[in-house]
């Protein structure tokens, strides 16, 4: 009885959050000047440029998610399971890459690897006397690699969380029976981590194909157009929102198919690995190889975090970046400008914090309930809830914002002009991240533990509170961070929904980018990273260093 009420209220909440804006998108996709028709779909299907962009998006998405997995998953394993030195630092580094907005990475890599003026190319020419540099960011390879820098942390986080939640018993048993590290990893750890690996591949693919900043800054000059850069032109004068909606809805179908595929692939296996006992795992001794592992992790972080931020921080303290090489000097002028002179600077920081904190908190509550209902199959059609929670993933922020605006700018809910509409945008847009993290956590808990509590006379609520909730705490906090961080840097939906008093950090950075001031972008980005660093450190401290798991720790 109670679960039906819960199901009904969560369904209602999800319906308002997800279906209301999506419903408006559906309406817009069929709306033409002549009334309702399929004209928008016909027009899109007939465009050669749209078909080319679809192919490019596919290549881009597949390449970026595969490379992301190849980088992220082994790093997660090394940090979670081995005695590699500086594991905490590597994990912090990955989080650092994760919090960096894609368009900041794009600016950084244009400064580093522009074919004529890039810093690394100038260095190469100075060192070798070559006539040309060796790097060219304006290529498909450049586009993929820069995007990977902002998506591989997804693979790391999902795989890492799963590894941390996994009880060490099975691996330990195999080891006792004489299996070597490679064999244990290959035959036990890897299959058990498979749901997270597949989930992270899907997540990275979907995240990559809706990226806007990087394809706009790197893809367009390389003449590589993807769906999002095609979409953007539909918002230019005269705006053709119906066409934009007609592009977005098929994307939603792709998500549905991918998610169903994921279920089909994994349906027959039981992945419950969190028995609640855990206990400390003995880290795998890599011997001298651990330094090689550290070196490889360091190399990944050098290109995804250290070099981009070095160049960004350098630019933020250079009076004029283009002369930074010839006349080295230091100035905090750009920080003073963005914090005190630039009208939206300091206000945006406060607004971003408020909206991101609320969105993340509400998001994990909804995510846990939905994940629990869906995983335990407590009510019928629970899978539908899971799909609803995942659906916003694939809607490009800009298009989703159009639906949000239509949904919340007229009675009964007039939220436009307030911080609430931004909060709702972030909550809905990033609910899938919270859901994935919480779902993976709930999936890892043996239902038998709850059943045991029930048998012993505890109510379902009590079993939840005393057994499930403590066991999924790390996953929930991981989910909170997974909403908070993208929310605080979200640009594409904010740009349509903010007003003068409700400006946020991303819109302020965008404004600076249009000035155009690379140095101002650099200064505010550095502030954003510092802010995220503080929030992550605080979360980590609150959990006793167990945010997103703890090296060598267990889920119990």
């Amino acid at each position, binding site marked *: 009885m109670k679960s039906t009420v819960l199901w009904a209220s969560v369904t209602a909440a999800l319906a308002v959050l997800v279906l209301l804006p999506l419903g408006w998108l559906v309406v817009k996709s069929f709306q033409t000047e002549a009334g309702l028709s399929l004209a928008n779909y016909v027009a899109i299907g007939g465009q050669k*440029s749209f078909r080319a962009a679809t192919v490019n998006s596919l290549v881009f998405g597949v390449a970026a998610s595969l490379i992301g997995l190849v980088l992220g998953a082994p790093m997660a394993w090394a940090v979670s399971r081995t005695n590699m030195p500086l594991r905490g630092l590597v994990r912090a580094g990955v989080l650092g890459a994760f919090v960096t907005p894609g368009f900041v990475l794009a600016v950084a890599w*244009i*400064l580093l690897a*522009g*074919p*004529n*003026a*890039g810093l690394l190319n100038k260095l190469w020419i100075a060192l070798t006397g070559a006539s040309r540099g060796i790097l060219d960011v*304006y290529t498909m390879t450049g586009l993929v690699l820069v995007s990977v820098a902002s998506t591989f942390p997804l693979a790391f986080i999902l795989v890492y969380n799963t590894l941390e939640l996994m009880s060490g018993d099975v691996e330990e048993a195999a080891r006792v029976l004489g299996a070597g590290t490679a064999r244990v990893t290959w035959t036990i750890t890897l299959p058990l981590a498979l749901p997270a690996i597949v989930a992270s591949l899907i997540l990275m693919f979907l995240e990559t194909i809706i990226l806007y900043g990087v394809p*706009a*800054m790197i893809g*367009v*000059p390389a*003449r*590589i*157009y993807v769906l999002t*850069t*095609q979409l*953007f*032109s539909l*918002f*230019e*004068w*005269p*705006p053709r929102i119906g066409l934009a909606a007609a592009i977005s809805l098929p994307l939603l179908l792709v998500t549905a198919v991918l998610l169903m595929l994921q279920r089909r692939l994994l349906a027959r296996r039981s992945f419950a690995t969190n028995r609640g006992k855990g206990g400390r795992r003995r880290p795998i001794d890599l011997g001298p190889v651990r330094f090689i592992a550290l070196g490889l992790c360091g190399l990944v972080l050098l290109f995804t975090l250290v070099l981009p931020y070095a160049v960004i921080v350098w630019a933020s303290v250079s*009076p*004029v*970046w*283009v*002369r930074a090489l010839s006349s080295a000097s230091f100035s905090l002028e750009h920080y003073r400008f963005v914090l005190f002179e*630039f*009208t939206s600077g300091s206000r945006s920081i406060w607004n971003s914090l408020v909206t991101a904190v609320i969105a993340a908190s509400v998001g994990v509550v909804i995510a846990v309930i939905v994940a629990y209902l869906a995983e335990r199959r407590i009510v019928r059609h629970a899978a539908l809830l899971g799909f609803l929670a995942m659906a916003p993933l694939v809607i490009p922020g800009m298009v989703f914002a159009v639906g949000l*605006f*239509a949904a919340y*700018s*007229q009675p009964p809910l*007039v939220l*436009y*002009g307030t911080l609430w509409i931004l909060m709702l945008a972030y909550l809905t847009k990033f609910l899938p991240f919270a859901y994935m993290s919480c779902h993976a956590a709930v999936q890892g808990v043996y239902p038998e533990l709850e059943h045991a509590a029930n048998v012993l006379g505890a109510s379902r609520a009590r079993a939840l509170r005393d057994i499930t909730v403590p066991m999924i705490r790390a996953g929930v906090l991981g989910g909170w961070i997974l909403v908070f961080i993208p929310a605080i840097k979200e640009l594409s939906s904010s*740009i*349509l929904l903010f*007003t*003068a008093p409700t400006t946020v950090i991303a819109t302020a950075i965008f*404004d600076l980018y*249009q*000035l*155009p*001031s*690379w*140095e101002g972008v650099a200064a505010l980005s550095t502030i954003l990273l510092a802010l995220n660093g503080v929030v992550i450190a605080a979360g980590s401290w609150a959990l006793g260093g167990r945010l997103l798991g703890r090296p060598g720790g267990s889920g119990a």
Partner: protein
Amino acid sequence: MSARLVIAWLIGGGVLASTLAHAQPAPGVTAEERAAARREGQVTYYTARTTVTANTIAKKAGEALGIKVNIVRLASTLVFNRAVQEFDAGINAADVIDTSVTDHFVAMKKKGMLQPFTPSSIAKFTNPAYYDPEHYWHASQIGLGAINYNPQLVKDPPKSWKELTDPKFKDKLVQGHVKASGTSLLLDYWLVKLYGWEYFKGLQKNNIMTHQSCDQSNLVASGERVILLCDHQITVPAQSRSLPVETVFPEDGVIAQIGGMGILKKAPHPNAARLLVDWCLSPEGQQVYVDSGLMSAVNDPKIKYPSKYPHPSTLKLLVADPNDVGRMLPELREKFSELFGG
């Protein structure tokens, strides 16, 4: 009273009434409107001007008029899209709107989004193309489409658009995309009109780089590409940050980008809005626009142009017919994308 007298009264009254109804209100702001504006106390200004220019307008107009000017600053199309969205949703947030694209104002007038207002400087407008005959909008500025270059790296800058297809500029050029940049759309409309699509094949041979926005002053200053097809006004913020970016006003034509300014029909602060528009179109207000590298639609000796560049009256200005641009729009999008992607 005789019937004839009644008829005479009626006719007289009717004539008077119709005269009143059709009378153009005197240009400028009345004393009552001025007092009402003070009571409103503030005005919300949606603008596509640069941050520095918008802030200067807010500060100077605020001081001169005794009202607070709230700025929402975005790129032209975003300002316009937002105003239309809000109008469709029945939200009355904006008072005054200021973008770089005349078409926006033609469309907003057609949608019934604007209210007429005649500024005091109306007699000084130099060209009837610079305002709506019914005074629903006026040009707040005229952008000057031109060639930008890096003076440290280009010793012999091109003098005309025509020259850019010369092989000596191979790997040096950068432009915006017609699908994403209003400036590029207008530039390319004229370049096609002047030299045909053959010209663009020449640019393609020269391996021109295409970005979405045409303001690539950072790229030009960094030396990544050194010659840019954009406009004069981007050099002002660039030079204020000591970036090496200069303008060539091409011999074969400087392309006029007529921007507009209008008052929303349901402006929450209508009197303050009139006050702000009147100030922006006055010589004092126009000086702020001119200082940001734009040309004024108003001719007044009080407006001072920077001495470094030729006076706008000496330029060969190409003013487009918006209907013709609209007619060519599909062809421009399609052919441009074929050549440069997108």
